[in-house]
């Protein structure tokens, strides 16, 4: 009996000690984790826009986040865009709800600040509080409008679609005419050495500089990648040569990865769908924002 009590006591004591150690680590690292993740995300974005070593990010550049939600009420569905708005120099957030025909159904100011808006939980809570009870929301996607000196220069869109094995998570940069500026594969679980090569420069840079019309009709071909093109894609040539070669190939199809044609095709199809939907939605959103004179910050 004494033995059992002894065991129980010691086990409890060691569990408590372990809990203290883990809890302390969690509290110390949680903030750093969020901060580093955000910094990493931002670095990826700037790299896609062409900034990095040797080309610092100008201070006039600003990123504006748009979060899209699907709002379900009894009898109808709405698309809610959480957009940043400027009100007397201060950034606030407004939820603009559109019906499925693209007409504005509702607009509400959401109580959020910039820090809070990065957290999915805080965002969801604030939106639910504003739209009232009996409605469901589902986060759909997240787009970033990049402005320089108040003028739009680019869009960054995130997307997740099926690959050969599981999902591919990407970020794509478009300029104002929706020509692609760059592609970054954030996550994938394709086979290493085969499908996982989609994250390598020589494949993902093939999507650079495609106009929206070219992108929509893009096909994947099973041909060897021309050596010159490969060198240009990997940035191993002089800038002028890279420009010339990229120009030459900008209407050509995508060269499939050796041994991973399906991964290549899935990525291409995923991007096509992503860009198509984005262009359609942005046109509608822009029209509504203009009609309703909503003072968005981008």
């Amino acid at each position, binding site marked *: 009996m004494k033995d059992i009590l002894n065991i129980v006591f010691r086990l409890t004591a060691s569990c408590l000690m372990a809990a203290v150690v883990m809890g302390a680590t969690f509290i110390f690292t949680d903030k750093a984790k969020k901060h580093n993740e955000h910094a990493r995300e931002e670095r990826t974005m700037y790299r896609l826009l062409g900034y990095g070593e040797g080309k610092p990010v100008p201070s006039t550049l600003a990123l504006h986040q748009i979060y899209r939600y699907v709002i379900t009420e009894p009898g109808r569905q709405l698309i809610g865009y959480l957009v940043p708005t400027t009100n007397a120099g201060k950034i606030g957030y407004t939820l603009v709800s559109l019906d*499925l025909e693209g007409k504005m159904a509702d607009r509400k100011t959401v109580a959020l600040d910039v820090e809070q808006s990065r957290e999915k939980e805080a965002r969801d809570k604030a939106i639910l509080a504003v739209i009232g009870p009996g409605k469901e929301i589902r986060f759909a996607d997240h787009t970033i409008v990049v402005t320089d000196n108040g003028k739009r220069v680019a869009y960054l869109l995130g997307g997740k679609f099926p690959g050969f*094995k599981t999902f591919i998570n990407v970020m794509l940069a478009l300029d104002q005419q929706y020509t692609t500026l760059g592609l970054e594969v954030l996550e994938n679980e394709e086979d290493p050495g085969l499908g996982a090569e989609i994250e390598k420069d020589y494949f993902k840079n093939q999507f650079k500089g495609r106009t929206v019309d070219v992108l929509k009709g893009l096909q994947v071909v099973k041909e060897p990648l021309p050596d010159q093109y490969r060198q240009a894609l990997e940035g191993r040539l002089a800038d002028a040569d890279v420009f010339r070669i990229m120009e030459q190939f900008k209407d050509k199809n995508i060269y499939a990865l050796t041994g991973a044609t399906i991964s290549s095709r899935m990525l291409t199809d995923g991007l096509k769908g992503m860009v198509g*939907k984005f262009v359609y939605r942005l046109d509608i959103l822009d029209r509504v924002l203009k009609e309703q004179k909503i003072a968005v910050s981008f």
Partner: protein
Amino acid sequence: MKILKILLSAVLLALLFLPAWLQATEFIESAAFSGKNGIAVAFAVPVDKAAAAEASRYTVFEENDPDIKLSVTSAALGSDGRSLQLLFAEPLNSTKTHVVRVQGLEGGVDLNFKVAKPYFGHLFSILVAALVINNFVFTKYLGLCVFFGTSKRKKTAKGMGVVFTIVMVASASMSWLFYRFTLIPFHLDFLQIVVFIGLVSLTVQAVDTILRKVNPVLFNSFGVYLVLVIANCVIIAVPLIMSSLNYNFLETFMLALGAGGGFLLALYLMSSVRERLELAKIPPTFKGLPIAFIVAGQFALAFLGFSGLQLF
């Protein structure tokens, strides 16, 4: 043979719990994707031919994108007046649930129904994926210590595989309950490693005690493997994967079943080869583990062929 029966009955049991795929309206008998860019609908009663053939009456969109309507190029009603074939301008993404709305088809009533892959198919594909496509030994490289340690004899391999499957299913189910109802609500998911390993040890202890009391004969043949189960990464990997993919209970169950079955399969295949290897002439430097690794490598290459397999 016995193992097969156990596995089969487990699958049947899982089928019993499956929710039936119910259609939103009784007017629609069935609706499914057909071909790359079509949807086939079967009505319960014949409908008006002229009205049903008007493509403009149909609004179709993916459930997650209600604002983007897919353009219907044609709607063709079969001669029986009940089977409808919708064709679309672009290929459909059949992994997503589609919503179809029909305006004023029968007596001016609007119809609203969903088209999706059968849920059973989804669960089955998780099972098959864990079993062969992402086989835990040959494509995820987990549990190798036990794999090489217990694959010398077919008999041991089978025993080990069955014990593994049972413990895995039990511990994964418990882990799911714990994760879903304790760790997530209290924001304690950073404790998952400790909690999951604790639950695995508990399950092993429970199986040990129960087996010892209920079936001593079985315990004598399987009991030795139980100790090996605790310190093994396959068994702890299942709850970790479940938590990272946000699986529901049935999905977790299928994942655990597939992972255990896959381990059993790998052990059985390997032990069959190793029993023969003993009779073969092997260079002395390759005897034992080195040759076993190379055989496993060949199996892994063969299993690479399963990747991308889609049944549903």
